[in-house]
């Protein structure tokens, strides 16, 4: 579904990504783990067109999307929950969800999708008339994910959804990720929380200083002694 071929990205003279090749298949949850500065966010920014690769191609459903502006991806079925959540602080929860369906014209579908988001995250329904800026971090993350789903994406990109959240909320977020996958949306998950990410994904890539150093089934990686030592703290 999504393929990165030999992607290299530079920030000026500094090489952030050095020949990354990875792929995400329909119906999978694929996670990209790595330490700070490994290039996780750079990879996502390259997929979403915020950065253009120096070399290599990004293919989505067999079409090249590298260099396409971010706003054109939504119409193609890619949706993103940005790092730091990026909710519209002065809009209400309901208005935030409506923004997620900005390109949708069918009002009945929008209403259905909104109900679905509320079913997935009942907390959002309780707070639907509240301004998003007054929500807790966990609720904002739920809102960012609910909003990203409003465009009915086939591929959902999640940038650090568990960042700065309480363990209980992290659990809720990962439950939601499983839930979204079971309903047929493919997910690329970028995470620092390797433990949770490996438990809730099918396959994983490990990124270190701009290169993919390991890849494989998440279960296998979780059992790998090198991963255990470097990322799982065992």
């Amino acid at each position, binding site marked *: 579904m999504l393929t990165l071929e030999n992607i290299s990205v530079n920030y000026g003279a500094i090489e952030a990504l050095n020949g990354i090749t990875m792929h995400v298949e329909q119906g999978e949850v694929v996670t990209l783990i790595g330490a700070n500065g490994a290039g996780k966010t750079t990879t996502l920014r390259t997929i979403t067109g915020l950065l253009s690769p120096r070399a290599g191609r990004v293919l989505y459903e067999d079409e090249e999307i590298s260099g396409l502006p971010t*706003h054109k*991806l939504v119409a193609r079925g890619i949706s993103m929950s940005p790092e730091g959540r990026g*909710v519209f602080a*002065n809009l209400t929860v309901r208005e935030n969800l409506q*923004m997620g369906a900005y390109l949708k014209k069918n009002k009945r579908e929008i*209403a259905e999708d909104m*109900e679905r988001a509320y079913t997935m995250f009942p907390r959002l329904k309780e707070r639907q008339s509240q301004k998003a800026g007054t929500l807790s971090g966990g609720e904002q993350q739920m809102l960012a994910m609910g909003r990203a789903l409003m465009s009915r994406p086939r591929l959902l990109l999640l940038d650090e959804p568990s960042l700065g959240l309480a363990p209980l909320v992290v659990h809720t977020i990962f439950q939601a990720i499983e839930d979204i996958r079971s309903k047929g949306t493919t997910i690329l998950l970028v995470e620092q929380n390797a433990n949770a990410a490996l438990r809730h994904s099918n396959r994983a890539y490990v990124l270190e200083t701009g290169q993919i150093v390991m890849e494989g089934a998440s279960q296998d990686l979780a059992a790998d002694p090198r991963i255990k030592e470097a990322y799982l703290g065992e």
Partner: protein
Amino acid sequence: MPTFVKRLLFAVLVIAALFALNAMLSTQGLFGFGLDDYYGRLLTFIGINVILAVSLNLINGFTGQFSIGHAGFMAIGAYASAYMTVYHAPGWELALAGMVGADAAHVLIFVLAIFIGGLATALAGLVVGIPSLRLRGDYLAIVTLGFAEIIRIVILNIDKVGGATGLTVPGYTNFVWVGVFAVITIVIVHNIVRSDIGRALVSIREDELAAEAMGINTTRYKVLSFVISSAFAGIAGVLFAHYNKFLSTADFTFLRSFEIIIMIVLGGMGSITGAILGAAVITILPEALRQLPTVGLFGQEFNFADLRLVIYAALLIVIMLTRPQGVLGTREFGMNWLRRAQKRPEGDEAVGADTGVSIAERDTTPTADPVEEVKNK
């Protein structure tokens, strides 16, 4: 169809009210209950400043792009239309008068002047906006300020429009013109803000990257907002030029830009009614302070007329310290008062009974059925 008729009636009511006010703008006017020229001038300047503040609020308050070049765009509108009314309009008006009568010709010529002023400024807004809006925050502010000064200096060096000596312009503007365009500006900006475009603009203000991720072409919407905002500044410039009857680039320095910014910062960035309030207060305040008496205090004579700029500054500091979001913030004051007036134009009593609950208060009632909620929109 009924909504259309109601809106038309509402528009007729507004214009009738403006004509009534205009008729009062002389000591002899309307059964002797007139306002003298001083107040007429003040009211007209409030109207012009309302156009400037409401339009600047579209790009600064709603879209969140801090532009401080409004005076430059005002100058383009003023000079472009003045060029037409000074060099071409007399001949055209004579020719038109033969066909449609003198009064209609007068009106048509000024409509054309406003159109030319607005169009020229919209084009200038497009040319300035496309490169500038790639920048954010302070950088955008500096660039727009720079463009405004460039526009002013260029005009200063065109002898055909008076250069440094200024240009005498025929007086087409009266209070009705200003009032009608102030209302048009408010209605258009209000409709934009409440439309899909408005939601896109507000989302850009809130988080540009997230807005992009929603599928919004942020560059296009920012430029659109900038161009519309500039066009209205140009129209305000046309009205100003033909009211003042004399044009000089000294009227369009960056101080003028700052004055408009102060209006929206004071009233509330992202509030149309706030911008109107700010425009009225900032126009009236220096005049009101001028009229305060001299007071003896601590053996000193305090002349408020001389101190008005100090008081004006102190007041702004107090407001910024106590309400940095402006008097109204992003809230609107009594907008449903207007909306109900549109729905029931016949019921002046019903309108009077409305207490004008703010939108923010109204929205706190959750709608039971989200399906209905979306359908109603």
